[in-house]
């Protein structure tokens, strides 16, 4: 029982008890409501169908990109590859965005289709890169083959003509380009290989230009050489004497008597005989009308020798003109001691300007020629024999 100081009226006691009862009921209602909400949410999450994230599509896209990169798509189809990369990232982020939502509200359709597109694009990049590589490989091989064939033709032309070091230089340069391009192809550097072949082709064009220059020079001088040959033959016919005609390009020396061919000798000429002799040491055999000025049956370094009277008046005149025009150095000497001598038979042009026969052929020719015998040397004779 309460003390006298704490006395309350019966009505107040009743209100307090009523309030306590009211609070207890409210709390219970609230608790039940919360429990119902929780139970409902659990039921929704458990039984409402929700989508699974397209993890497989993401993995496929990653694999496809890896394969494309391995093939070289980044190098040969960069734009395609970057597009596929971006699509994969976008699809991944869209998937992550959906993952962040409440399960019943997730929709992975967009993410899945983006990732599938990423994989397709990566496959396309891979395919196109492979095609590009195949194309470049094929192009490089075909360009190489073309250059090789043209070089072979030029090689035949060079081998069949007088030594031409200017042309040889460009041939070697083009040939080296071929070798380098082969190495580049083995390293998968197809574009570089094509560029190298193109450089080789430039050398080849320069080589062809030089050959054309010499052909043009020959075309301009052929009539002069024809005239010299005709005059020599006429002299031989008229006087009934022996004459010698040397055809540098054909590598032949002809012994003629009374205008008729008596004997043909194989010969070798100067190591740089593609043009007229310009100065001492240029390696060219002179072209002109000469005579034997001395016969050396003994004492020659090259078995036996027939000295010819190079330089003649025309040679001296040309030499002075070339110096004035700056074609040759002012310090250059005209040279001399051009002979027909032995120790030939080497199958290559090796002399400093002389004409080399085999020893047995020297023995033969020396039976018929003497001091004063005309010797006409031409670069090419299309009239004789």
């Amino acid at each position, binding site marked *: 029982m309460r003390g006298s100081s704490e006395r309350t009226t019966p009505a107040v006691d009743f209100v307090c008890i009523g309030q306590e009862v009211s609070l207890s009921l409210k*709390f219970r209602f609230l608790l039940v409501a919360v429990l119902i909400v929780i139970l409902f949410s659990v039921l929704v999450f458990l039984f409402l169908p929700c989508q699974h994230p397209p993890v497989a599509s993401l993995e496929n896209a*990653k694999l496809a990109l*890896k394969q494309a*990169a391995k093939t070289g798509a*980044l190098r040969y189809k960069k734009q395609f590859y970057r597009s596929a990369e971006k699509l*994969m*990232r976008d699809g*991944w*982020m869209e*998937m*992550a*965005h*959906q*993952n*962040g*939502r*409440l399960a019943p509200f997730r929709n992975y359709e967009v993410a899945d289709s983006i990732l599938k597109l990423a994989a397709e694009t990566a496959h396309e990049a891979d395919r196109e890169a492979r095609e590009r590589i195949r194309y470049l490989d094929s192009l490089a091989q075909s360009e190489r083959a073309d250059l090789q064939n043209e070089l072979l033709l030029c090689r035949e032309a060079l081998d069949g003509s007088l*030594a031409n*070091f200017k042309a*040889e*230089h460009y041939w*070697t*340069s083009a*040939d*080296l380009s071929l*070798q*380098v391009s082969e*190495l*580049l192809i083995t*390293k998968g*550097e197809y574009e*570089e290989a094509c560029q190298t072949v193109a450089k080789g082709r430039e050398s080849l064009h320069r080589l062809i230009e030089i050959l054309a220059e010499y052909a043009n020079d020959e075309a301009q001088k052929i009539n002069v050489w024809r005239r010299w040959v005709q005059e020599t033959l006429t002299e031989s016919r008229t006087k009934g004497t022996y004459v010698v005609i040397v055809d540098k390009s054909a590598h032949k020396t002809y012994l003629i008597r009374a205008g008729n061919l008596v004997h043909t000798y194989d010969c070798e000429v100067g*190591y*740089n005989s593609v043009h007229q002799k310009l100065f001492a040491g240029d*390696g060219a055999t002179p072209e002109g009308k000469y005579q034997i000025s001395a016969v050396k049956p003994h004492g020659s370094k090259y078995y036996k020798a027939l000295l010819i009277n190079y330089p003649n008046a025309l040679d001296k005149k040309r030499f002075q003109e070339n110096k004035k025009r700056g074609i040759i150095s002012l310090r250059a000497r005209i040279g001399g001691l051009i002979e027909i001598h032995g120790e030939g038979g*080497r199958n*290559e*042009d*090796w*002399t*400093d300007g002389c004409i080399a026969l085999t020893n047995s052929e020297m023995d033969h020719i020396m039976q018929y020629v003497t001091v004063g015998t005309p010797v006409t040397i031409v670069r090419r004779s299309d009239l004789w024999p």
Partner: protein
Amino acid sequence: MFKRITIAFIAFALLAFVSCAKAPEQEMQKANTSIEAARTAEAEDYAPDAYGIAMDTLNAANAAKTEADGKFALFRSYSKAKEMFVRAEALANEAASAAQAEKERVKAEVEGLLTQAKAVLDSADAALKKAPKGKGSKADIELIKGDLDAANASYTDAQNDFTAGKYKSAKAKLEAAMQKAQAVITEIEQAKAKKAGK
């Protein structure tokens, strides 16, 4: 009593929200900067595997952040994303270092070849100067000079390619130059032997 429990619960939830809901902006920035640096260092060409792993990790970190962004604040946590950004940054730095190391290795390899090729070309040049001279050898010497000129031209091209960073092309040209120069040396040695045996 109920009121005190409720207030305590709300206070605790707010605390958790504040501590876990902060996006890892700094870590993300650092990771992106490192990836960019790796790309500049040509890691895609020189360290493609390491770069690929770094990019994958960065993408995964971005995905984790995006996922967390979408969650209700009370359930949001960026701890996984943060950890992955930190890892992506480290991997990108590794990729950049690996690329740099590989570039240095390739560069050193080509530099070595340049030195080697120069030595062979110099030897060929010296051999040519001592080649047997005289009538009959001039044609060969002229041809050899042509070969050596071509080899030297290839060497010069290789130097230009090296300066431009085209290491594979430089290597091929140096190999061709050395082969040519070696062939020249062999030819001269054979000519000398032939002359000696004559």
